[in-house]
């Protein structure tokens, strides 16, 4: 069974702080996606990384895929209350299946 562990599980920080969320596995993935989910809604895709070592930036969010394509990180600079939500990573298996991580619940306090 392929597993994706996310850490930390919960994170509560003050507005303006930086944070990093990790997504780790012993399995190699074809790609890695990050989603954000808000209460009462489905997850929404933030980014897809495909190449080992790839780094992508989305405004204050920086995503990195590990060199061996087994892990990934999400770094948020100067967090804002609007960043509050559940962050999920998903590892690609082949071309159409994904294994989701356990999730990191982030709360940014004003």
């Amino acid at each position: 069974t392929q597993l994706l562990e996310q850490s930390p599980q919960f994170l509560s920080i003050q507005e303006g702080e930086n944070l990093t969320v990790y997504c780790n596995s012993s399995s190699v993935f074809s790609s890695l996606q990050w989603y954000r989910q808000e209460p009462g809604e489905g997850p929404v895709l933030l980014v897809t990384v495909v190449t080992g070592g790839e780094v992508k930036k989305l405004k204050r969010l920086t995503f990195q895929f590990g060199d061996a394509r087994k892990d990934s990180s999400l770094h948020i600079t100067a967090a804002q209350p609007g960043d509050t939500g559940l962050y999920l990573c998903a590892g690609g298996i082949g071309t159409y299946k994904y294994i989701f991580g356990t999730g990191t619940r982030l709360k940014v306090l004003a």
Partner: protein
Amino acid sequence: NAGVTQTPKFRVLKTGQSMTLLCAQDMNHEYMYWYRQDPGMGLRLIHYSVGEGTTAKGEVPDGYNVSRLKKQNFLLGLESAAPSQTSVYFCASSTTGGNQPQHFGDGTRLSIL
């Protein structure tokens, strides 16, 4: 632009009852998925379909059946509901090709008493 629509949004069942969850997408996507989301466990894949008339098992298929008679619809059935199936169920769809984003519905919250 509806995207992925799930019905119903909430449902309470008694143990042993049956029901069907409906997922409809208007994006002409080939791939469709059913997940369940439980606290601390992320999303787990129940069943998926790579095209009309095809279905396949995911990580946690036991106790569920699915059908994809029309490209735009993906149905999830519970034949005899059990308390362990209390969860939030999400449907998703994506287009063909690798690394495509999955588009999710807003979920169905199901409680089995």
